[in-house]
Every structure is written in structure tokens, then in C-alpha cells.
């Protein structure tokens, strides 16, 4: 099992295109997800693939905790935080508070997913509280 192929030195044009494409794509994704109003945040909470809660964070006056599956979430006006979970790696807790549109975190072992979105299709002005 010898490697008969000569290893070429230096980067190729393909490398440059790849790096540029990934940079561009992630820039677009970041701009798309983080632009917009922060006041109209909405948290979508999934358990085992089913959307179990949809919370309009701006409506919250007093923060509270909810239990979704084996995870406990702290719901506040400015974000959602995983505060406890039965999972082994606790990555969901390490993530901290999800505060911005486009933020997402999952506790994969417990099948709990939280996505922060803004109110779909509505500008802040047209929202009736």
C-alpha cells in the first residue's frame, strides 16, 4: 500500500473559491437571521419533532420556568435559557440564553429544540397586542 501519487504543493483555485463561497454563505445566513427587530421575538419549542409551545417573548411580564420533556427552560422577556436537563453532556445549558432572532439550541439526547424567531410576515407596527 504505497502511495504512488505525488502530493502537489500549494493551494488550488478550487480552494480559494470554496473559502469565498463558505464565507459568503455564512455572511448571508448571519445577516438574514440577525437582522430585524429584537422586540418582536417569538420562541418556538419542539419536543420529539412536535411544536409544543410558541411563546411571544415580548408579551412576558414576569419570567417563569417550564418543563419540556426532561429539560427545564427559563422563559424571559429577552430570551430563553436551558436551566436543567437530564442529558449527559449539558451542551444545551452551556449555550446560555438565546436572545436573538436566528438563535437556536437543541438538547439532542432529550429531543428538545428551541428556535428564536421574529413574528413572521409582520412588521412590528402591525402587531396588535
Amino acid at each position: 500500500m504505497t502511495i504512488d501519487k505525488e502530493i502537489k504543493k500549494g493551494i488550488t483555485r478550487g480552494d480559494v473559491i470554496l473559502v469565498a463561497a463558505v464565507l459568503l454563505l455564512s455572511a448571508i445566513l448571519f445577516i438574514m437571521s440577525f437582522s430585524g427587530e429584537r422586540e418582536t421575538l417569538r420562541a418556538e419549542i419542539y419536543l420529539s419533532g412536535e411544536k409544543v409551545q410558541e411563546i411571544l417573548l415580548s408579551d412576558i411580564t414576569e419570567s417563569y420556568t417550564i418543563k419540556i420533556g426532561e429539560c427545564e427552560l427559563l422563559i424571559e422577556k429577552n430570551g430563553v435559557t436551558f436551566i436543567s436537563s437530564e442529558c449527559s453532556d449539558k451542551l444545551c445549558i452551556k449555550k446560555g440564553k438565546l436572545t436573538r432572532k436566528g438563535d437556536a439550541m437543541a438538547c439532542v439526547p432529550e429531543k428538545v429544540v428551541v428556535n428564536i424567531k421574529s413574528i413572521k410576515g409582520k412588521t412590528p407596527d402591525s402587531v396588535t397586542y
Partner: protein
Amino acid sequence: MKSKKVATLGIMGALALVLGFMENMLVPDIPFLPVGAKPGLSNIVTMYAATAMGLPGAVYITFIKVIFALITRGVTASFMSLCGGLLSALAVSILIKYEGKIFSFLGIGITGALMHNMGQLFGASVISGTFTIFNYAKYLLIFSLITGAVTGSMLMLLMPRLNKLQQT
């Protein structure tokens, strides 16, 4: 299978596990890391296996890592490792055939890291039942670029020495 091949695969499998274990210890000390993301140093071994033995070599290393993840970190982690590892092994094995023509090891490393992360997100989506987790992809994209470039260029530097080793 020739005995030399068995021995080489054994050493590479062990190396992949050690690198993976070491980076697990390092992760808490690396700043600005997206939660759950790792440098993927063991991908250097997978890429080398793909270079030396093609897809079967890369898949072999992937399965060693998957079994290790199953024993040490549980079913969820090993399933995600399997999804990421197989997709990455497949992409790297194809691209390595055209090394220097399409991508150098730098581009191959980046593609491997990208595929590994996307495969893991896919695995996480399957387990949790919702593809909305792909919202997290934007963090991993930019991170794959850095880790892939690191692992790719490490292999580029190591390759001439490894080649010399193979010929003895």
C-alpha cells in the same frame, strides 16, 4: 487483508481515538467555540486513511470512532458521529482522488469538516425530529472553515514524511 494493512489500520484507529480524546479535554480551554463544536483533529487520520486506502480505509476509521463514542458517550453521540463521519469520509475519499486538481488538502480538509458538521446536524435532526436545528448551521459553517483549514494543512505538511514511512 495483508498484515501490514491490518497493523497500519490498527495504529491509525488508535491515533484517531487519542486525538479525539485529547481534543475533548482541550475544548473547554478554546475560546469562541460554538457549543458542541470540536476541532476535529481525528479527521486528519480519516483523511490520511482515505489517501492511503481509499473509501474503505476512511470508513474503517469512522466506525472505530463511532464504536468508541457509543461506549464512552452513548447512543446519541455515536449516531451523530456516524452521520458526520460517513458523509465526511465519502466526500474526502472522492476529493482525494482529484487532489491538486479541484482542491488541495486545504480544500479537502474544509470540505471534510463541513460535511462532518452537516452530517451531525442531520443526525441531530433525525433524533430530535425537527430539521429546525439547521438554524445552528451558520455557526458551524464559519467554524468548519477554520478547523478544516487547520486539519487540512496539517496533513499537507505531514504527507511527505508519511509517504517516506510507507515506502520503507
